[in-house]
């Protein structure tokens, strides 16, 4: 049987085939061809779309170009969410490739954060990791790392170097055996139909009486609606990295294997498609 390590590889090397089309109202000198790209699920949109920008700038005048942003079917896409999460949340039951519209004007200030450079992404990424480690190890592991180790995590993500990233990240995934898991599980639950951006609470992987918490336990605690009762048909899909783990999957295992590089378990709860 395959080893758990294979899960890490599968998660890291997950790709979403994407078709970028320029927004129809953008002013171009000639017609803009759509651009096709395999986006890493674990990365961030603005980190991997240099090629997209270059492609469309070829047909545009410099004065018509402001900050680039994306939408999917009218929903602006938050660059600071991992790509895989955006896809699962907004497009998981649509046809592939994922069709993203590219904008260079009318930046939706209310919906999106600006992203002037990669250092903003790095800062966001590192702050997520630090927050996650604060939950997992009271920040002990991340604080013990040197600056170059932090850099190695970031460079690993930026350059899509699995080995480089995991050589360091594994330290963030360790825990004392006698405790059986992290202190708290860093997770965020995203809902499509909600005003709140996401749900995040303190939740331990092991209960005080030694019982191993599962994905189901977490949902029961923080978002019970997501779990359908026996007598009703399934209303919600609980999706992580494009898959639906069984509710009895131990949460600790999920946190170790299905977390994004920012060390958070990003869980999307989406309505079951009606058809």
């Amino acid at each position, binding site marked *: 049987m395959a080893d*758990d390590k294979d899960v890490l590889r*599968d998660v890291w090397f997950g790709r979403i085939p994407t078709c970028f089309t320029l927004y129809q109202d953008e002013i171009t000198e000639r017609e803009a061809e759509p651009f096709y790209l395999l986006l890493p699920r674990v990365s961030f949109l603005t980190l991997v779309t240099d*090629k997209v920008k270059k492609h469309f700038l070829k047909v545009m005048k410099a004065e018509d170009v402001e900050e680039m942003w994306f939408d999917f079917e009218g929903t602006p896409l938050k660059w600071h969410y991992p790509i895989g999460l955006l896809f699962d949340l907004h497009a998981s039951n649509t046809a592939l490739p994922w069709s993203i519209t590219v904008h260079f004007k009318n930046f939706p200030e209310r919906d999106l954060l600006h992203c002037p450079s990669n250092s903003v992404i790095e800062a966001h990424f590192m702050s997520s990791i630090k927050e996650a480690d604060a939950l997992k190890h009271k920040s002990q592991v991340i604080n013990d790392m040197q600056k170059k180790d932090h850099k190695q995590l970031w460079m690993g993500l930026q350059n899509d170097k699995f080995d480089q990233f995991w050589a360091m990240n594994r330290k963030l995934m360790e825990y004392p055996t006698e405790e059986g898991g992290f202190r708290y599980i860093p997770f965020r639950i995203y809902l499509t139909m909600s005003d709140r951006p996401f749900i995040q609470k303190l939740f331990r992987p092991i209960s005080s009486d030694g019982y191993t918490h599962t994905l*189901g336990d977490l949902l029961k605690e923080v978002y019970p609606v997501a779990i359908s009762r026996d007598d009703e048909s399934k209303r919600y899909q609980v999706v992580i*990295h494009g898959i639906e783990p069984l509710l*009895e*999957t131990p949460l600790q295992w999920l946190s170790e294997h299905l977390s994004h590089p920012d060390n958070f378990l990003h869980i999307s709860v989406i309505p079951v498609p009606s058809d």
Partner: protein
Amino acid sequence: MPVSLLWAVDVYGRVYSLSTRGQQWEQCRDAVLEFKRVTAVQQCCWGIACDHHIYLNVHSSDVPIRYQEETFENQRWNPMDNFSDRLLPSDRWQWSNITGLEHQPLDSFFLPSTNWEWEGDWYIDENFGGEPTEKEGWTYAIDFPATYTKDKKWNSCVRRRRWIRYRRYKATDNWATIPSEGRSGPLPDPFNDISCGGWEISEEPRGRLSLWAVSLQGKVWFREGIHHHSPEGDGWEEVSLPGEVVQISCGPGDLVWAVLWEGQLIVREGITRDCPRGSSWVVVDSPNPEAGAIHVAVGDNVVWAVTKDNKVWYRRGINSYNPRGSGWIGMIGEMVMINVGLNDQVWGISCEDRAVYFRQGVTSNELSGKAWKAVNVPRDGDIRSHSSASSSSLHSAGCFFSGEVRAQSVMSEDSDTKNGPQRAVLEVGACPSSPPPDPPPVDPDVPKPRIPKVTSDSFISEMLSDRKVKREGATTEASLREADAKSPPLALVLSPSLSGGPGDPQWSNVDLEETQTHLAVGPAGVRGDAADTCSLSSVATYTLCQEEPYGADEHPLWAWVSGGGCGVDCHSQLNWFNSATALSSSVQSMSLSISPAQTAAWRKQIFEQLSERSKREMDNFKHYEQAIEQSVWVKKGAMQWWRDWKPHKWVDVRFALEQFSGPEGNQDGILFLYYNFNEEKKYLHAFINEVTILVPVLNDSKHTFAVYTAERTKQRWPIRLAAATELEMHDWLALLSVSCCDSRGIQGPPSKQALWSVTCKGDVFVCEPSPSLEACPYPTPCDQMFWHQVGGHLRLVECNSLGVVWGVGYDHTVWVYTGGYGGGFLQGLASSTDNIYTQTDVKCVYIYENQRWNPVTGYTNRGLPTDRYMWSDATGLQECTKANTKPPSPHWTWVADWAIDYGISGGTDREGWQYAADFPTSYHGHKTLKDFVRRRRWARKCKLTTTGPWQEVPPIPLSDVTIIPCGAQSIVEPIPLWAISNKGDVLCRLGVTLLTPAGTSWLHVGTDQPFKSISIGGANQVWAIARDGSAFYRGSVTAQSPSGDCWYHIPSPVRQKLQQVSVGRTSVYTVDQHGNLWFRQGLTPSCPQGSSWEHISNNVRKVSVGPLDQVWIIADKVQGSHSLSCGTVCHRLGVQPMEPKGQSWDYGIGSNSSSVQSPGCVQLPLNPSSVPSA
């Protein structure tokens, strides 16, 4: 951690034992009588019953306690009768012992007690110093006290032959009465207290114990002559006393304390190797002048006492020089008694609730520990009463197994539980492939797959009932055996669980069903269908464990506890304290072949969905461009390098690994090493895909490793590097290792065909054989084979081509490969998550104390100016004092103090000295007039704790093991595996299959002398080497009769003592003590013993023959272009079906070890018995 037992007696006199793997007290039902006190050691438990007699319960083992009686028949030649029993009046008796001084006719031998039985009748020994004698077994000499030869000469006037007969201790797992007789008639006095220990005082005779007893009148008695071959000892000897004693305690070493009626304590002094009884008592005052001491407990280096007010006291400053210690410290907690077990761990019975408490946090640095923790597990009786009382249908299945069976089963089984749980699960492993032929009679209303009907009760009683069936089988075999007993030597069937192998489908079927459900309950308490099964499983787990033991009247009241046989330390993970999780976690730890996490449905689901996802999202879009272009990744660091040119020394270098995607998309890399040469910047590089092996090198001051390429292997000169810290070295090694494996496309666990080897430092390496390894005529050269490390520490590794791998540690502990990879420093990506376990190993570091004689002062530590250091290593070249000698590497820690080693070859005197005329000569164990120097060896044990894909196979320590190189086609077919215990017993493992690589139990195969090497060939040919250097062939070994019928003695090559043997498909090779390699000529199916030995090569340390008769050796010394290597893996070229001897050697890995500063020694007692065909 091997399974061991904690013993206790409750206030009703019932004896219970608790296994370190178990979660409930098992009552010892065999004990007809109530017991007052017990004292346990690892191999047995002594007790005082309510009749005040002493009883002994020897734990059974797969290797029986058997003793060889011998006597000699002497004859003299005269012209009339030829050789006859008519001896001269001045001669010895016709029947005598070996010296001729004692009269010993055959009928003068009696069994020492009724607990012994004869194994067979007397027979003649036809082996004489490794040479077979003529049929009658006579050896000849000129006259009686003379040298005997096996050949009759013209001047042979006398002859003698040796008769042998075995007796066996039969009262194992049973309380056997020890007659209360002193040296002069019965003791006047019944016994009141007893304490057993002293096994560390001396290793000779094997298994020696001290037993101290106190009589009701306050007298102390010492039992003489207890050791392995005499578990009961010979008799009581009274010890004079300064007062009347109420209680006594004896530690593993030389510590013995007792409590006097008046409340003072007395300490025994003068206990030594030669005088285990000690010589005198010294009085120590009670810790509290108001309240005298009532109880004392001693360990290796600790003394605990309890005073009349139930206060607990710890004695400061105890060591073997000062057994009295220096002062008392009052401890928290009130106890009625205290017991110190192995590793100075402390057990007590609380005054308040009469529960058994364990002292937490006792380490060698903090012997007083931290806190008391109650042992909180139910007794076997408690649970049964629950499940039968329960009306829940869930438990009804469990009830089926309970009660009756349990009551009938002989209690001797109970102490056997140390092997029990593991066996039960191992049997499970074999089952999934064979569909259950006949479902067990469980309640048909219960929908089986969904109901976790297993209670710990049913699980255990089922094991016992299972065992009971087997037991009956065993009895039949026993009677058969008796019939055969006259044709020794014969294989002895001794394990009770033996006969119930695959031939017992119904029971194994029960195992399967029960345990699978059990496993599914698992640690997470979650199964197939989430919502409702969750609650069901929690019913099963929780009601059983949480509520039961706390039932109002069920609280056990304990009277006595003994931890002397309980091998725990402060790091042991015990399931005794928190019963809620106990059940599930113990199930997990028991399973060897099926781990619950791996088989869980959720896990499978994730794997399936992920691969579906990849298919859905990526398969049709491969032509899309990647968002991130691959680039080069560089990791840099600073290191020291053992420079290539003379004078060799460590120089600072910068070190970099550049990784990039190779042309075919595979990962590749280059190592750069930047250094300065004459102020000029230079660099050295190595392609990652050319690295053949990375070896950590032990060095007590630096963290070093060596990098080899094929070229550097030829030169015997690797790149040697030293990192600043251990952590840094491990990071680099792990990274380089992953990088090397990536570049060669190696991922995950080793394949079944992998070659395994260990270095002389104990590191384990694996090589994935390429198809061209055995290609003809141009096989892959040995020096290009790529070896990568897996975790663990072993002295010996043995594998077959089906992926069954066994290893033996330096401390003779046996390990079986679990199917994982990584461990040790190979963490993160280089290691699997599952199947990695903690592994420990213990070895000794030796130093020598040297002295020279001078006429004035005798032997002193003042040598001549030209002499070696007065404290040195074996060669005398290095100074090694007790203080400056460090463990072999930072991973090893001392676990004991320096002690004199009496076991050195050549023998020693009573103080451990060996004498010689001058220093670099041979030493002998007694002083003669010509001896001017003497030395003695000091040993100190050190311990390594690491992790790796290995699980222990308790309980018998081994010195050699062999697995049939090919064979078994199906996963349940038994795989023959033979071994030699560290005492020289030959053992055959039963129940080894692909699914249960650890097997189930040992079958002891009788021999007339200890053995040292064994090998089994592809066609079940078993060859072995005895300690006297002769070879033996085991006849009639087949799949049906896995242990064969008898040994055939094969004389060794003339004047050579053989050391090691290896058998391939048809070839048999041996290595002798002088490093010669011998090939057995004339082996044919009709004559499997062959005809003669043919010399092939010298300079060989070890040989290993593969399933296709491939020959691999470890060569002793091989000259490279740069330096000499000691220990090189070599492959015999030109081995063909018609040319089994081959033509020449091809030299592979191995390196320099000649210089102490540049250690890089890679001795690989390689076992390439699994090289596949071309």
